[in-house]
């Protein structure tokens, strides 16, 4: 036996070493599903390599800063002028956006939405990489000592970079979004299709799990969906570059990352996120709990007085489509508030024969659809008040059945039923017409 072992000594050692490593792998795989702890060898390796990397990066940036900040200042005055102009332009834009944001907050407060806010970030410098094509990760010069924990989101001003995989004492390992094992919940900005962002062996980024019967255009922006509980919703991820039919029933959507992942120097780690309900409109009177409940619960509409001359009510399938709204109409909507529409708003609703119009409360004794219904859907309302919003200037013709603009959750909204919808003509026009300023009552496309 001894003779046999000594004869095959090399092979025996090879088998023992391989077996030990396979055993170690199996233990790690088993533990990784329960508790991810950092191995000591990782700490040693990182402690051995990263100080040298930090020193080189520090000296590089020192020399670079010295050159750029003290010697190479050509064009700085011109750049300063341009930046001042840019600030002026952004200030004006900020005023407009503040108004939009305030309105969105009011509407979200009404609907009980919760928003995620990035409340604290930590800037960090990239000091190293994994150096392997099989694993795309980077090292940053901030670690658990600075408050970094695993699974924190890492971003740049351009977009999403990745997430913290491991946090050592003074450094952290960040898994990039183009790694094959990474996954980011993403959503297409216009079409609102959700998918999972993954890396490929070639370092590209693809959006998976989008059904092949959907239409996705190259150039569309991709943002985080917030569904992964790591990245806050709405952070830019990239732009769709190519769409092709993929395996099974899904599309193969190639995405160009917004952040240049091959040239990362400084990143931001999101160390704190807050989830809070946006504040309601300033100065709004406090609401009683009963009122809030009444708003959220569907209400039974008052039955209007029977009109013997009224045509028979449509039986089913009636939907309200938000009609295109001009700025003037939006103003009238604003003026009428979220309650019943004013008579002036009612006058807008008379859009002509052949179109089923929803008349407003108080204007006529006819059964009414309250104008509050037009803004019961937060998205529609906010878009309706934005003059330059494309959704407000073109007729809404949903390809698929969508939630009606009138929501039963609003107690000021009278749910649409056959008895209340009184079309102007017995045969209502099936297509919404662009000039209409009020919600139109139409048959949904069959």
């Amino acid at each position, binding site marked *: 036996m001894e003779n046999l072992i000594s004869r095959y*000594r*090399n092979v025996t*050692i*090879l088998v023992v*070493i*391989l077996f030990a*490593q*396979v055993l*170690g*792998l*199996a233990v*790690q*795989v088993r533990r*990784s599903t329960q508790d991810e702890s950092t*191995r000591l*060898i*990782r700490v*040693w*390796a*990182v402690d*051995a*390599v990263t100080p*040298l*990397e930090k020193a*080189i990066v520090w000296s590089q940036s020192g020399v670079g800063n010295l050159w750029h900040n003290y010697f190479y200042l050509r064009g700085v005055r011109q750049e300063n002028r341009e930046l001042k102009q840019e600030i002026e332009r952004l200030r004006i834009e900020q005023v407009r956006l503040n108004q939009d944001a305030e309105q969105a907050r009011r509407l979200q407060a009404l609907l009980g939405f919760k928003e995620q806010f990035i409340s604290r970030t930590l800037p960090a410098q*990239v*000091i*190293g*990489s*994994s*150096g*392997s*094509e*099989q*694993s795309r*990760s*980077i*090292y940053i010069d901030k670690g658990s000592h600075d408050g970094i924990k695993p699974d924190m989101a890492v971003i740049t001003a351009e977009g999403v970079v990745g997430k913290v*995989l*491991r946090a050592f004492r003074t450094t952290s*390992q960040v*898994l990039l979004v183009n*790694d*094959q*094992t990474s996954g980011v919940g993403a959503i297409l900005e216009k079409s609102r299709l959700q998918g999972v962002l993954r890396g*490929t*062996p*070639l370092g590209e980024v693809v959006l998976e799990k989008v059904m092949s019967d959907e239409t996705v255009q190259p150039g569309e922006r991709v943002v985080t969906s917030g569904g992964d509980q790591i990245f806050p919703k709405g952070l830019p991820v990239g732009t769709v570059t190519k769409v092709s039919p993929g395996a099974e029933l899904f599309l193969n959507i190639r995405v160009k990352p917004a952040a240049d992942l*091959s*040239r*990362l120097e400084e990143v931001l780690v999101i160390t704190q996120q807050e989830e809070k309900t946006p504040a309601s409109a300033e100065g709004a009177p406090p609401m009683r709990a009963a009122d809030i409940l009444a708003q959220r619960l569907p209400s039974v509409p008052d039955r209007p007085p029977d009109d013997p001359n009224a045509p028979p009510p449509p039986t089913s399938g009636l939907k309200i489509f938000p009609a295109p709204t001009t700025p003037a109409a939006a103003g009238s909507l604003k003026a009428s508030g979220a309650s019943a529409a004013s008579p002036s708003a009612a006058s807008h609703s008379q859009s002509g024969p052949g179109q089923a119009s929803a008349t407003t409360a108080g204007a006529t004794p006819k059964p009414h659809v309250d104008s509050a219904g037009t803004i019961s859907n937060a998205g529609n309302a906010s878009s309706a008040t934005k003059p330059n919003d494309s959704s407000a200037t073109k007729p809404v013709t949903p390809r698929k059945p969508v939630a009606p603009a009138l929501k039963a959750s609003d107690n000021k909204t009278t749910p649409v039923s056959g008895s209340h919808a009184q079309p102007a003509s017995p045969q209502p026009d099936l297509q919404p017409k662009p000039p209409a300023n009020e919600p139109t009552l139409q048959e949904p496309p069959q």
Partner: protein
Amino acid sequence: MNPRYRNRLNSVPITYTSNEQIEVYRFSLPAAILVPLIAVFLQAFIPLRFHFFSIFDLPLLVVIFFAVARRSPVAGLLTGAAIGLLQDSLIGHPLGLFGIAKTVVGYGASSLGVKLDVENAGSRFLVTLFFYGVHEIVYFAVARGLVGLTLQWSWPRELGSAFANAFLAVILFALLDRFKQRT
């Protein structure tokens, strides 16, 4: 045998060599420790500035070089295991993926070094090309079979990397030859 014909036989890049003919080299302790460490460090640092560099695998080249020069399978596999585990430590994957792959390569390269003359550029190119393929196959087999990672094999990338590493090996091995010491 005609002497001219015998000389032509000697100039074949890879020739069978008897155990008595082969030369076994050793390395000083600083070289044996620092060269792998520097290789791992450069592999982690250079791709940060030059992204294309990630197609190279400097630690693998160092493993092949040491294994072939020492011509001892045990020393080769231990060197491969150590460098592989060090490289694993800097990558997000579980420890042992590169360790196992480089252990196999270290053992294979040293076993081959015992039997073949791999001192010239042509043989070094072919040996590196071959062992890069072995490394990738073992790595993918372990990663997908044992760990369950969702890695995808890409022929263009693997072939490109194999040739790039083989070219770099010819240059790198010529530089590392300076650290060789005859036993």
